């Protein structure tokens, strides 16, 4: 039995953190909600510059994005080996688009993952969430999701993560939903919000994790938005690294809030750029 990765994949600001908190609570089956600063779903963090440096024996912060890309498959394999054979499923968050290197090797490695959950969210809400959290204007946030870019690519200060190429929002969704290397279960943030037990339950079943209805209901309760917001208020949320001053990570937890924020022109711009994928997933 070797350890295998389960990718928890998403474009940023699409519900990945909430999904991980749900999973964390389900696996722990504890009496109290898990501390949001102590989510521990895997023994490897493949985008960590530190872990990449240890695996490659170089200062990974010196690599250009395309150079780092070339090392990703072998680093993921090395880190997974390092976790040990008996370690069980490694639930690893990933924002990278599902891509291939020039020689055809998947960026995320071959034969390292047994499954993936891909969570997506209405890009109009992604834009609003990004603009609030990163302190960007809405128009700037729209530019951001329309661009093929590397997340976390820093040239002005030491980055803590390896640059992760996202493609634009539509490219990201297609890359994960159309790949056939890793069985993938797609879930919409909106469905998870509307009926968490049902939507999360389907994901849990897809992953082959056994869980009683009680355990599922408890995990959902422990990951309730009010609880997460309360914890952030009390303890801070250490993953909230990109925040503009004073902004909260667990901010609103709503779906469809874009209607109150985007102008008709802004909404139209997003729909023009991403309409095909939006329609495919019921957003139009």
């Amino acid at each position, binding site marked *: 039995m070797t350890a295998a990765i389960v990718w928890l994949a998403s474009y940023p600001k699409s519900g990945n953190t909430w999904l991980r908190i749900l999973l964390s609570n389900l696996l722990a089956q504890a009496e109290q909600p898990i501390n949001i600063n102590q989510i521990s779903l895997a023994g490897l963090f493949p985008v960590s510059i*530190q872990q990449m440096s*240890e*695996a490659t*024996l170089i200062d990974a912060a*010196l690599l250009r994005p395309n*150079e780092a890309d070339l090392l990703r498959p072998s680093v993921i394999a*090395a880190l997974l080996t390092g976790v040990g054979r008996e370690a069980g499923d490694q639930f690893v968050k990933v924002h990278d688009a599902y891509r291939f290197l020039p020689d055809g090797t998947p960026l995320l490695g071959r034969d390292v993952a047994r499954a993936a959950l891909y969570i997506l969210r209405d890009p109009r809400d992604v834009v609003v969430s990004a603009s609030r959290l990163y302190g960007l204007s809405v128009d700037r946030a729209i530019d951001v999701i329309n661009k093929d870019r590397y997340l976390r690519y820093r*040239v002005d200060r*030491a980055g803590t993560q390896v640059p992760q190429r996202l493609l634009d929002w539509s490219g990201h969704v297609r890359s994960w939903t159309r790949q056939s290397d890793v069985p993938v279960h797609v879930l919409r943030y909106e469905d998870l919000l509307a009926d968490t037990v049902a939507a999360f339950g389907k994901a849990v079943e897809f992953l082959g994790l056994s869980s009683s209805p009680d355990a599922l209901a408890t995990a959902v309760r422990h990951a309730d938005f009010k609880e997460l917001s309360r914890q952030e208020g009390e303890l801070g949320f250490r993953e909230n*690294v990109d925040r503009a001053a004073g902004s909260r990570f667990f901010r609103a937890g709503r779906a469809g809030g874009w209607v109150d924020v985007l102008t008709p022109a802004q909404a139209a711009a997003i729909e023009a750029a991403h309409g095909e994928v939006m329609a495919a997933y019921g957003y139009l």
Partner: protein
Amino acid sequence: MLHQICGLSVVADGVPLPGLWQSNIDHHVEVAVNIGRVPVLLEGAEYIGSTWSVRGQDFLLCLPGLMRMLVRAGHEIIVEPAAGVELAETAPFVLSTGFAAILHQRHILALHAATIVWQGGAVAICGPTGAGKSTLAAALCAEGAAFLGDDIATIRPDGSGRPMVCPDGRQHRLWADAVAYLGLTDRQGLPVRSELNKFHVAPDREIDASLPLSTIVLLEERSAACQPSPPEIIDVPIVDALPLLRRQVYRPSLAERMGHEGRLFTQIAGILGHVRVLRLERTRDLVDLKAGAELLLSRIARPQ
């Protein structure tokens, strides 16, 4: 031209190595850096990692699309850039990983640390990549400390067993915002890699002698997302220090794969009786930099 790097005399004909200070010391050559063909993998390697292989006294690094490097028996580094790659782009990896391998092959204790001198003693600032070692060292120099090294602290005992730190021969390497913040723009040199706003910065003076190690500082980052509070220094009891220091060895897995676990243990245990170990906790924000530097210097000056 001979360079002094980590206490070794190095000749690097045809391989540009920027960010080193000038050396006039006439010495026999201990390490040669050359351009040449390097295989992808060492045949019969005892250990193979994601980018590297070890076979006896040979270490090979292969970075696809960038370079290959072979380090032999502590005295030779052979570099082969990938097609279309300028030799200068390989220099940062030669100076860091290449020399880490040289030092481990020579059984010399090397910590990943920036080092300054205060009140006659060398202070090694340890921490992982990106922790802010170089930046803090430059800030300490702005407060009057002298600069001994930016990246690797090599530690060798003198005749009486006292740990002595050797200069690594490197200039400061600082991000553009730190250069501006510390008022060092007139000393700014080449970028560490093109496209990165991290630069070599000449120190105000170069010390080319070894000095006794007095203090080791373990840098810890406080998350900016949690409650803000001023920098804090904590004395680390010697009993706790050994495993912490073991983690500060430069590229420790390389030393382990060369079979040096026992040697490292003995070397680190040997320095513990001579040094004070402190932990400095602060955010990486530049606003904490001066406060952290002043706090550290006053703490070092205070008797234990």
